[in-house]
């Protein structure tokens, strides 16, 4: 691209691939015949609030912080497990404080949102063919949900059932 995409005050020249169409126009300059003066709107920093779907997208991306939070907690637990029963009991006690419980509940809601939105998008990205025919989108999403429920059950059994 040959054009200058960074001009001032919202007035820009735009590259057209091959030709450089520089008319030397700056804001306030006189109109020049045969040299169109493009107007490019600047994008507001609040663009993501202008549309529900944009806000949902940004929220989906931000909830990945909660996913990282739980991954960190999990690594912390595994590390403590390796250090012995005393260290693990210490971690469990820390996770039982009111602040940790509130963080976990909020984080869990955010992770739920993250999971559900991604699973609903999965059929668009995955083209699954069984004996030449494309599997319908809802079945791809359903398979993701089924795997989620199954793995959650295994984890729940491991943490809750194994203690008894």
């Amino acid at each position, binding site marked *: *691209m040959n*054009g200058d*995409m960074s001009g001032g005050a*919202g*007035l*820009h020249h*735009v*590259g*057209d*691939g091959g030709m450089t169409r520089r008319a030397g126009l700056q*804001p*306030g300059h006189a*109109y020049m015949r045969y040299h*169109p*003066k*493009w*107007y*490019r*709107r600047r*994008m507001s920093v609040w*663009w*993501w609030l*202008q*549309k529900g*779907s*944009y806000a949902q*997208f940004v929220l989906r*991306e931000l909830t990945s912080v909660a996913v990282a939070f739980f991954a960190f907690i999990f690594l912390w637990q595994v590390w403590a497990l390796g250090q012995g029963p005393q260290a693990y009991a210490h971690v469990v006690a820390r996770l039982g404080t009111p602040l940790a419980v509130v963080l976990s509940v909020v984080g869990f809601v955010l992770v739920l949102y993250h999971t559900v939105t991604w699973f609903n*998008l999965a059929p*668009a*990205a*995955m*083209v699954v063919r069984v004996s*030449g025919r494309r599997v319908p989108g809802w079945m791809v999403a359903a398979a993701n949900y089924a795997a989620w429920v199954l793995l959650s059950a295994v984890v729940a059994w491991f943490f809750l059932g194994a203690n008894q």
Partner: protein
Amino acid sequence: MASTITLAVTRYRPEEEAEPTVETYTVPFRKDWVVLDALNHIKDHQDGTLSYRWSCRMGVCGSCGMMVNGSPKLTCAAFLSDYAPGPVRVEPLQFFPIVRDLIVDIGEFLHKLKKVKPWIVRAEEQPLSEGEYLQTPDEVDAYKAFSMCINCMLCYSACPIVGLESHFTGPAAIALAQRYNLDSRDQGASGRVEILSDHEGMWGCTFVGDCSRVCPKNVDPAAAIQQYKLTTAVDTLKSWLLPRGSR
């Protein structure tokens, strides 16, 4: 039913004003009129200086895309009755530089489109004596949906990444690249991957998904891009893990 409806139309006359302004027009409100009919009425009867693009009036040429009440629409398919009682806000496609009134500069888009080689690439053409390149119905189905694109650019106007990153190749161009990648007659996929595997290409897409929601031809560019990402990632993994012969 009201007999008239008001349109608030963006005007930009670069020889007169530094930035766009809004002008309102009142036009007859008819059930069978689309926004484009209203614009034509304004141009014929009220203000001949109003500039906009249009051609076929039936959702095929892809020229009349504009923002109608904030959403990218083909104005030949946007019925006034869906926006009653008005006023109907008509703006040029967002994220494109405005040349005049409702006309945007599409030079950047055409450059991006050409970059992805949206045509059948052959290493060697089959001689005429061997006849045409035949395809089974399944081979056609593999790319047919993506071939319905009319280059109307509504998807570019729906995509915030296009607005934030002006170098992003964008939905339609990547979907068309994928359309040719999936075509059994094409052999240009490896060349396109080199062009589209950088940050300005498919990885620039963050899957907002609005491109597919506004597409008047149900092309689903968002799906095309995600499928392209998945194929590329799987191919890269294979190239690391498998011996050369079995890839």
